[in-house]
């Protein structure tokens, strides 16, 4: 082979190398957020004890966002969700919130737990940024400052605890029970209200067992429940913790226990992660919507795999209402720190143009004209009290049959 031929070939290889290097860098990253986007913060638990909830809730939020954007956005501006992970903990949620606040959102949707909400509210109240909590509700330990509204679409843990106690005593005819729970405002409030109401009605609490944080085995807790002699066990804990406890408890007794479960355990993830048949017949209390919406369920199934969870209805409504409020807020002549909160009030009026969940395009058009709106969402019509609490309360009892969650009855 001549020297020139070798040189030529070496050049070919070198050129290929250079071209390849250039091509390797030519696949683009995704487009960034538009500068004029309407920004809403979304705090969800993608990791930690409540990780099972984050992805589900986000699906509905994204559907609402896409519904808004595919209808042309808000006067041409895209709705952008700035999503962060709470890690199911207040400490991480605070830094996640601060990261969202750097982007100057109009409102924050979330978090999943009232203990986390308690940690976030001082920051948000200080900045006058509304917090819209789709499934989290008030806690006795939370005090709001004057004129600040914390928007809550779901009933409080205490209300649900009392309602469940009524169900246990009156309908399920349970006369004594053991309660098993973890720390966290929701669980403490739920169990506290449940036990208090249950005892008021004449029932007996035989054991009260707190499951330790960061524990993977609960043999001591199982022993305590066993010793209580009660056959009815009420559990309020994050899904993974509950699944571990129930898994261990179910092997430790000859008589099958009757399981009663908190609203946060209404997820297919629970039976999926519990040993076969153990939870069949278990009952729980949950949030309810006026009626299952087949159109929404179809759209959901077309876009996502996995079971639609009730909480998703609430998250859809939270994002939809935020978009409507953003449309009103856009044309406020002299915006103040509270004008977005006022706009939120203006989309949840008793009287006004009724806008359904699947009619956001018309809703935004009317909102841009500052018309009063009565949003009637997937969870029904929304009407807030003076503190931002949804006044309509609809709850239901669900049960587990053949490893699947099915609705039993509305309360």
């Amino acid at each position, binding site marked *: *082979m001549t020297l020139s*031929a*070798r040189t030529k*070939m*070496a050049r*070919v*290889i070198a050129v*290929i*190398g250079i*071209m*390849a*290097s250039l*091509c*390797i*860098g030519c*696949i683009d*990253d*995704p487009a960034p957020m538009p500068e004029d986007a309407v920004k809403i913060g*979304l705090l969800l638990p*993608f*990791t930690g004890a409540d*990780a*099972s*909830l*984050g*992805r*589900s809730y*986000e*699906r509905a939020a*994204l559907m609402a966002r896409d519904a808004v954007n595919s209808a042309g956005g808000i006067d041409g501006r895209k709705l952008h969700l700035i*999503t*962060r*992970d709470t*890690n199911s903990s207040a400490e*991480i949620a605070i830094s*996640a919130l601060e990261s969202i606040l750097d982007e100057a959102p109009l409102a924050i949707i979330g978090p999943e737990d009232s203990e986390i909400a308690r940690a976030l509210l001082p920051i948000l109240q200080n900045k006058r940024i509304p917090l819209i909590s789709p499934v989290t509700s008030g806690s006795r330990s939370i005090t709001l400052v004057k004129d600040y509204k914390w928007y809550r679409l779901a009933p409080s843990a205490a209300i649900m605890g009392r309602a469940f106690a009524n169900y246990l005593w009156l309908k399920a005819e349970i006369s004594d029970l053991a309660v098993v729970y973890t720390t966290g405002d929701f669980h403490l409030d739920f169990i506290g209200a449940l036990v208090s109401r249950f005892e008021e009605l004449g029932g007996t609490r035989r054991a009260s067992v707190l499951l330790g944080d960061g*524990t*993977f*085995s609960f*043999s001591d807790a*199982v022993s305590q429940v066993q010793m209580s002699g009660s056959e009815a066990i009420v559990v309020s804990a994050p*899904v*993974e913790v509950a*699944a*571990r406890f129930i*898994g*261990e408890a*179910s*092997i*430790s007794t000859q008589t099958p226990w009757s399981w009663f479960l908190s609203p946060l355990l209404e*997820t297919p*993830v629970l039976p*999926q*992660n*519990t*040993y*076969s048949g*153990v939870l069949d017949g278990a009952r729980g209390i949950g949030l309810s919507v006026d009626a299952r919406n087949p159109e929404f369920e179809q759209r959901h199934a077309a876009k996502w*795999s*996995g079971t639609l969870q009730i909480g998703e209805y609430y998250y859809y409504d939270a994002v939809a209402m935020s978009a409507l409020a953003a449309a009103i807020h856009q044309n406020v002549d002299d915006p103040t720190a509270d004008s977005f909160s006022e706009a939120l009030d203006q989309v949840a009026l008793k009287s006004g143009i009724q806008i359904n969940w699947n009619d956001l395009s018309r809703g935004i058009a009317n909102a841009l004209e500052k018309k009063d709106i009565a949003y009637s969402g997937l969870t029904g019509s929304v009407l807030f009290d003076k503190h931002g609490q949804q006044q309509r309360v609809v709850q239901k009892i669900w049960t587990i049959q053949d490893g699947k969650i099915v609705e039993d009855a509305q309360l």
Partner: protein
Amino acid sequence: MLSIVLALFALAGPQATAGDTVDDDISEAIFDASLEELLATPMEVWSATKTKETVDSAPSIVEVVTAREMTIWGHSTIADVLQNMLGFYIIDDHILPNVSVRGVSGGLGAQSSIIKVLINGRSVSFKSTGGNWLGPELIPVSAVERIEVIRGPASALYGADAFLATVNIVLKNPEALQGGILRARVGNETDVLGTSAFSDHDQTYDVTLGGTRKDWSFLLSASRQRETRDGLRLPTSSPAPLIPHYNADSDVSSPVDHRSRVLYTELSKTTSRGFWRLSGYVSEIERSGEFSPWTQLSRGTDDQGRSVGTTVHLVHTVLGVTTQLQASDTLTFDLNLSFFTGGPGNSDRIEVASDLFFVEREFSYHGFGSTLEMTWNAQEWISIIGGIEFLFDHETLPVNKRIDKTTGEEIGRTTSLRESIDLINPAAYVQAHMKIIPEFFTLTGGLRYDHHNIYGSKITGRAGSVFLWNDYVTTKLLYGSAFKAPSPTFLYAAPIQPGDTIGNESLEPQYVHTFEFAPSFRPSERLKLYTALAYNIILDKTEFVPSGVNVEAANVARVEGLSFEIGAQMALEDLISAYVEMELQRVLRDWGQSGYSSQLMGNRNVMSPPWIVRGGFSSALPLLTHLPLRASTTVMLVGDRRASAENILENQGPYTLPMYVAWNASLMMIDMEWIDNLPLTIALRGYNLLDSKVADPGFNGIDYPRLRRRVMVEAVQTF
């Protein structure tokens, strides 16, 4: 030189099938060839087209590693070979090595299922996971003659799972062996001063026996390895480990053995018009699951004084029958039958961090595969291969039994959505290989149709053109497509504990299209330059992705990858051999969904390094003229590896594991004839000599520590 060329060309023979017999002269030719002669002579391969081709003329990017090269460079497993080969990167999860190809990893529990591994042309995958075991449990090293590795898809010939690469291990020819090889290897991890860090030693023993008598030949090979993997530190980068409370204060793995056992045997008879062969294969792994996906560092004594810990114990068996009939000078028929079975062994137990129980897995598979293939050398310029295949796999799906830690009795179980499933896959394929302009331009085209009872029909194809411009320059332009069927684990996995993996019955097969351009250049007999540019597009890429508290198998849409590989090899007689290679991988993922997780993970690649540089140098040391002393060293620089998607989520942000340097070296005496005609090889080998304490990306909230410095002594006696 000419004799070497002739011998190498004759390696596969006119009626060769994978691992078909090679005669004495050929083996000796390879054996006697100097490193320079081996470099100058394009080695023959079978795997690329199922006909004899040289590595230069084969319509694939194919590399061959001989047993001698494995000895020189210190490779003791197929995983070692691949780790040192362009386009591959191995992550050891301390249960099995898991390979990435051109920047694409199979993900959690993939067990190298993105490649197809064959022993003498027969698949030995563990069907339930589709996994390929690449460690010492795959095949005794003493039985290996050479390893043919094809980068790129090869489903058109090999069906499902020949997805991103195909590895065919060709075993020693009994006729050439006529005796045996005994190999022993002992060693240990060492601390800075070189003293043993642990109380026990790694030990590998393997033996291969082979011979012929009249028309009969036999090969028997067995290996047993025991390796200590204690003292490995859980990487601090691990975002969410799950350590049982009785070991909560520990971050170091406990002293336990990793055991691997494998047995391979075959009996052949040549006939006037072909041959037939019976083969048997049993492979077994027993691993402590100190870095298992369920719990980590679980080995020890719990609060009640019970001995606890995860052990992964799996066994599988393949029995084969092969027969070849030379119907005429131009027509050959091959019939291959395989019977396979596998499942967990007696010691399998999974710790789930419960004080009350552990989990015993119960699942199994058995079935058979058959291939009838016709090779028709219709004309001198064209050969056609056509075949039909049938695969039947009965999978008994996992039942996870809870076993009381105190009584040892079963106290409940979880079952999969189904008890069992039959997987049935008939297929037909055809390939034409045409020498359009002899000695200059060849064209190869192939098409394959598979019909699976679960996910329907799939068509794959390949096309390749090879230009042999002159004696020095070759270019290849290649296209191939392949599909990877979802394994039963991906389809039906039931959580062993809360948070574990969940199967997905609606999974689609993954599908890859690959375009490759590969020029090579031999400016002299002492130097070879080669490069390849490959573009992969993978559709419906399947991985376990976070789903609530669990991880669920999902088709995560689309992965695109551009791979640039370049290298040079040189050899000077038998004195010096050296190579330097570099690869750049640019892989982007479209997760197919919007939202926080995909935003957090971004579209950048995970798991595999974006670049690797490898180099090796080996030289004879003429210090003592009567001893064949040789030294070799290899260095591998590996770029940052981005954490797995799951761990990025757990970490609430992307993170990378830092680049590292792996330096290995060997000092050896090869084929020292201390007794006449009984060559002995003795080697002192050091791995990770810099003792780089680095980690590789892992799953389920942990990263995996790489092995520490190890020093091994190896002796190979041929008799």
